[in-house]
């Protein structure tokens, strides 16, 4: 039996190098931790803030209301989280047991399979999990003694439940962060709102990155007439006022989170395209590219397997800033009233309630969502900046 503990001396890969540089800043690591915390918040939101109890005994029978009421999107998020975690573990495993020359290919295959599983899973979940409605007032059941042994979530409120009597109350013992204009609990809405913000960030940036990479790669590689015409097209996209484009399109399509993500993605790819194009300009003169061309490799392969890995760095950095930007845009849209349909919670929407029409400063409706947006955006910006510094070879101390 081969002793795998025998250290295979593969040296440090590019990814490891970047990570080491990145990890040098403890400050940024804290913020990375904050981002992970946010993710956990978003994934487990229905368990953290819910007006239904985990378990309750009614007439002797045990019921599990929270679990019964989980929707297809809740399950999808859990599925995506599990798959992402698995993928992460696999990456670590790859570092130890897979030869670096084939590591990239293995990684690609793993990522493709993961994405495939997630997508198929989401589709199946949405098809098979029925939509349920459970508006039973469990709290009053407990209060009146009809039910016993109820275990509620830490924040025992639903984000859509209204209670006009406690409208616009500042933070107190019942509502730790206060209530909004129809009496919904603010903390609950912020927790569920993290889902919107984070998912908008990722999906929108994912879409814009993919489009930007493809277009940038083609333009950067071809040069000449293709590049000229293509750049005119890119300039058109850059010159169209993005915000108005978004508002017009949002008005056109029905209000859904996915539409907003799609629109933000479709309108912000120009930066990525420019970066990739610039990188490809510099790269296409290099020897390894010329070699690949003379070998007769297919264009797709040259672009994406050979050139792209070298050009991807600015895209990754921009992705981090892009996520921050997407969160900003979503908050602005919700603030202006063009975001997701109510009562879906969104940080921007809660923020828009912050100053009441009387000029009375409802500080808890301004401060907390503002802080949430601020910290999240700050976290992504910090991570992006540290990542950029980590990738920059000139800042690296000699290995």
């Amino acid at each position, binding site marked *: 039996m081969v002793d795998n503990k025998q250290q295979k001396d593969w040296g440090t890969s590019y990814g490891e190098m970047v990570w080491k540089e990145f990890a040098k800043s403890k400050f940024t690591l804290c913020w990375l931790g904050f981002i992970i915390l946010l993710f956990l918040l978003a994934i487990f939101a229905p368990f953290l803030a819910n007006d239904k109890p985990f378990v309750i005994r009614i007439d002797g029978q045990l019921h599990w209301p929270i679990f019964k009421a989980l929707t297809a999107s809740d399950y999808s998020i859990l599925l995506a989280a599990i798959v992402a975690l698995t993928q992460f573990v696999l990456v670590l495993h790859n570092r130890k047991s897979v030869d670096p020359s084939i590591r990239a290919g293995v990684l690609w295959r793993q990522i493709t399979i993961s994405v495939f599983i997630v997508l198929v899973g989401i589709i199946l979940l949405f098809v098979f999990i029925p*939509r349920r*409605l459970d508006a039973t007032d469990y709290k009053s059941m407990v209060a009146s003694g009809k039910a016993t042994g109820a275990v509620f979530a830490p924040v025992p409120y639903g984000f*859509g439940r*209204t209670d006009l009597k406690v409208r616009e109350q500042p933070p107190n013992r019942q509502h730790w962060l206060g209530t909004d204009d129809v009496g919904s609990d603010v903390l609950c809405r912020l927790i569920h709102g993290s889902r919107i913000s984070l998912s908008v960030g990722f999906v929108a940036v994912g879409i814009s990155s993919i489009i930007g990479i493809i277009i940038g790669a083609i333009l950067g590689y071809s040069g000449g007439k293709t590049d000229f015409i293509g750049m005119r097209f890119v300039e058109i996209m850059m010159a169209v006022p993005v915000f108005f484009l978004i508002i017009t399109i949002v008005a*056109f399509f029905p209000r859904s989170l996915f539409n907003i993500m799609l629109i933000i993605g479709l309108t912000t790819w120009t930066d990525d395209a420019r970066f990739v194009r610039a990188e490809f300009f510099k790269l296409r003169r290099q020897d390894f590219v010329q070699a690949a061309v003379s070998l007769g490799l297919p264009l797709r392969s040259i672009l994406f397997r050979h050139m792209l890995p070298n050009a991807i760095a600015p895209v990754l950095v921009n992705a981090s800033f892009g996520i921050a930007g997407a969160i900003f845009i979503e908050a602005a849209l919700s603030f202006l009233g063009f975001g997701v349909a109510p009562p879906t919670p969104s940080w921007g929407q809660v923020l828009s309630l912050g100053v009441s*029409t009387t000029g009375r400063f409802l500080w808890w409706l301004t401060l907390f969502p503002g802080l949430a947006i601020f910290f999240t955006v700050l976290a992504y910006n910090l991570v992006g900046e540290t990542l950029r510094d980590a990738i920059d070879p000139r800042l690296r101390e000699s290995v």
Partner: protein
Amino acid sequence: MNGRSGIFKFFLFLFLVVIIFLQFLSMVQADRLYDRLNTLIGRLESRASAPTRTVEKAAAPAASGLKDYPGDDGDWLVRNLEGEPLTLCDFLATSEWSSRWIVSGNIFESMIEYEPDEFKYRGRLAEKFSISDDGLIIYFKLRDNIWFSDGHPVTTDDVIFTFNTIMDPNIDAAPYANYFRDVDHYEKINDKEIKFHMKKVYFLSLGYLGGMTIYPEHIYKYKDAREFNERRSNPVGTGPYVFEKWDVGRQIVLRRNENYWGPKPKVKRIVLTFITNTTAELQALLSGQVDYIRPVPDQYAEKHNDENFKKDFYCLSYWDASNTGYFWIGWNEARPFFADKKVRLAMTHLVDRQAIRDHILRNPEAQIPTGNFYIYGKQTDPNIKPWPYDTEKAKKLLDEAGWIDHDGDGIRDKNGVPFRFKYMIAADLALHEQIAKLVKDAAASAGIEVILDPYEWSVFSQKVKDREFDAVSMAWGGNVEEDPYQIWHSSQRGKGSNYVNFNNPQADALIEQARQTLDPDKRNELYHQFHRILHEEQPYTFIYTRPEQRFLSKRFQNVIIHKLGINELEWYVPAQSQKYK
């Protein structure tokens, strides 16, 4: 490379500096230009308003029989409007109430108007008016000593000109012309008397014709309709104020008509500003920048209890005869959910209207209407009480209508269709959104899933017109006395304003009969029956109707709340408290 980039940067810098300087100059220039333009217009105006005939000021009040307003002369009233009007011609603007406020009653006047404290008409420009017993002839006699602000006397020619202009198909006044399509022809008797012959009897015809604001023919006559359509500013009329200037984007200024035929108001100028942001509007009031605003319900509810605020400002709350509308949720009867009236009634029982009034409007004077008429008017049946908030009753009604949760998913269904509908609202209207969220929550407890469907206003209007909704929330404006035909008659279902497809032959008959009944008592009796039908059928869930609210600086005196509203012309500021010269 060295020298190049240095020179380049230098030029870039210079370029920027030059642009900034030019920008600065153009700002100054633009303002100077506006000033010059305004003074020019002002000069033209004053030339135009120089009386062409001597004005017998002493005679005027006696001739018109109108009382003088009390108080000291002077000061300005600075009022904020929620939006800038598009034009100051009041029949070109269709849904712009702000321009109506600005011009009707101030710059232009109509032949008749409502008494301030009774549901009766009285003459303004007209001395006598009547409608024949068969309702087909309407007669007006103009006062003797009335003239436009330039001194030109008012005659029936001006009335005829106004009428013809409205009816001219090339003039962009089609919605307003709609009110007069029952007119067969007019008959000018002499310079002061005129008769209108109607094609059919309609109880509102007198009000419509008499409510026309009279435009001076000698100023507004046109060869090409475009001239008139595009004339958005410089209105000239008979009223107590004349137009002084319009700084687009900032303000409109009206100046007292020193040449007015009737009792002159005491306030010398009216300045209208357009701060749209409601918070900024309130701040402007508090800082003294404006004197008179229309607050939103939350603002009123809060300031109403603020003793400090009330030291400097009035919190006015009054029922306005010309703006007696109500807020409603409409259930589209063409959709499977709401065809059955039991379901509609159930929905009404699910909306806690009392809580809306107490917590969202926070206005104890708001009322829950039971029908479409003005709640304190004669058309409404005072014995009908609103349905109570009762979730259990709602559930029972739903059960009776056949909507039962067969498959245990928490949502009621019938014939395989789950009770899940889209509730359409206009985005960016806080009140609509709050009420919608309330309805959604309440419906969930009854096993109905409501999906909120917000659209921005332009799309929203289109969808309402196309009847593409399950449920919608909107508000109608109203009058002290109105005709329910356009909204409730079955003929209006396709393209008219009957958006919820209400179709009740009994109601139709009542509406048609009432239109032709001139005797108010008989007519109101018919309307009481119609009201009862609406109450039973619940095509809308009527949410609230509320009085108008205003904040006004306390330096204004003689602010009286009449039964049918307030009259800004009565106000004055005592000399020692006057703010503007």
